[in-house]
């Protein structure tokens, strides 16, 4: 299931520091991480521990200070890997209808972009509508972003992240700003989307229940410098249900994760200086 022998994403002795000279801040200490193709990995930890940094390294938005980031067997950026991203803020373009927002990646990413003019009113349109239907937004394609609620926008944002069949899906606290019920509903939708399409997913969250429910592996991180301190496998059958999250096995898992984060924070709180 984890496919660690043939990783799709691999971080090898990666570090990241900001600033120069004496003012350097280590955002990410030496980090090693392997993610198998089609796996679902969650990164949890306190804020400022470099969760989002790992996401940005893997998508090539920032470059590592040292070490190597490999995606699809080659250094990041060398291989044209299709990437989808969704953030806490849905960042829909207000001048486009929901359907056009969802179709945006098709306009940008090859091989779709060459066909965009020809197929945007036929095949691509149906594709967007089908995806919107899957997340419960059937019939909302012609609406504009301001006419939808936050939860609905977040669903649309997931559609936009998935429309171009990404091999790699990056989720940066996409459910963070939603209420509990909407969140749980979207977890189920997310699991459904993952199971039908099987992209390699990297989810950043600070919700342990969310991490345990969605991911195959949960990586616990600590801050200053950010590093992965624990890598837990979640061996629950799929599709998982919200009821499962109340069972003893799941509760003890989240408790263990919680303790790991708290104990990772404890020695850190005493230290004021960043180790060089």
């Amino acid at each position: 299931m984890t496919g660690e022998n043939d990783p799709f994403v691999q971080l090898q002795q990666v570090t990241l520091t900001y600033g120069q000279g004496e003012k350097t801040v280590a955002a990410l200490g030496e980090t090693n991480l392997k993610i198998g193709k089609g796996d679902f990995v969650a990164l949890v930890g306190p804020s400022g521990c470099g969760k989002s940094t790992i996401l940005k390294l893997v998508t090539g938005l920032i470059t590592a200070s040292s070490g190597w980031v490999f995606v699809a067997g080659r250094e990041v950026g060398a291989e044209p890997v299709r990437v989808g991203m969704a953030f806490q803020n849905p960042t829909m373009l207000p001048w486009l209808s929901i359907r056009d927002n969802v179709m945006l990646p098709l306009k940008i990413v090859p091989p779709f972009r060459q066909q965009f003019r020809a197929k945007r009113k036929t095949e691509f349109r149906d594709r967007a509508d089908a995806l919107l239907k899957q997340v419960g937004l059937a019939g909302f394609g012609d609406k504009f972003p301001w006419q939808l609620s936050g939860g609905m926008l977040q669903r649309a944002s997931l559609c936009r992240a998935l429309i171009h069949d990404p091999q790699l899906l990056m989720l940066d606290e996409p459910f963070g700003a939603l209420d509990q019920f909407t969140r749980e509903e979207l977890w189920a939708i997310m699991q459904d989307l993952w199971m039908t399409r099987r992209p390699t997913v990297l989810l950043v969250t600070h919700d342990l229940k969310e991490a345990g429910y969605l991911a195959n592996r949960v990586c616990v991180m600590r801050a200053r410098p950010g590093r992965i301190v624990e890598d837990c496998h979640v061996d629950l059958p799929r599709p998982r249900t919200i009821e499962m999250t109340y069972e003893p096995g799941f509760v003890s898992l989240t408790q263990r994760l919680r303790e790991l984060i708290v104990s990772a924070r404890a020695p850190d709180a005493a230290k004021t200086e960043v180790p060089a």
Partner: protein
Amino acid sequence: MKAINRRRLQSAAVIIGFFLLWELICVVFHVKEIVLPRPSQILTTLWLQAPAIWPHTVQTLYTTLVGFGLGILTGVFLGVLIGSSRLAYDVGYPLLIGFSSIPKVAVVPIFVLWFGAGTVPAVLTAMIMSMFPIVVNVATGLATTEPELEDVMKALRATKLDILTNVGLPRAMPYFFASLKVSVTLAFVGTVIAETVASNRGIGNLMMIASSSFDVPLVFAGLLVLAVLGVGLYAIFSVIEGRVIGWAKRKDDFALG
């Protein structure tokens, strides 16, 4: 619908009331025509002198529109350049602010020196006056793109041009239209300044000649023509704005269309 009609009626009443008050004050205080003509006198002059005023009006409108058009082109070009490049921003902004601080009246003689008196200096003055707000607004619209949105685009391996056309420019549209409404009136100011200084045609020139012969009602008639032209163009751009960027105002009829 009724509420809208009532609002329109009210604003029309206030505007007409302003002119009636003006008329009344002139009559009550016996204000001389040479100091401040009554609105009725201005309208009479406008009516009687219409054949003489008309060619000047056409000339001014033509000059303004050409200058404004050029102002939009150069303004958008410079705005995109400054808004999307750090270097251009650092170099361009101080230059631009310095340039726009220069009184445009002072520039007209230079244009006359280069191109001779007539339409060309007026077009250029209208252009440089209308350009500045467009540059600033387009640049601001581009520079304030959400970083997360840019991340989404970059993760899709979008080129700079992709980001500009799909995110930057549409985002800058409300800023652009806001600046157009300011710029179009500034273009009129530029035209009239140049016409006053160095031209033998246009409303500016007409007003110059009228004031030198103390024909104050004709001067005011010229002002009225300018005001009407300005309001007209402003209204046209407001309508276009509503059509193009209804999303920014969350207009429901935009959503349905």
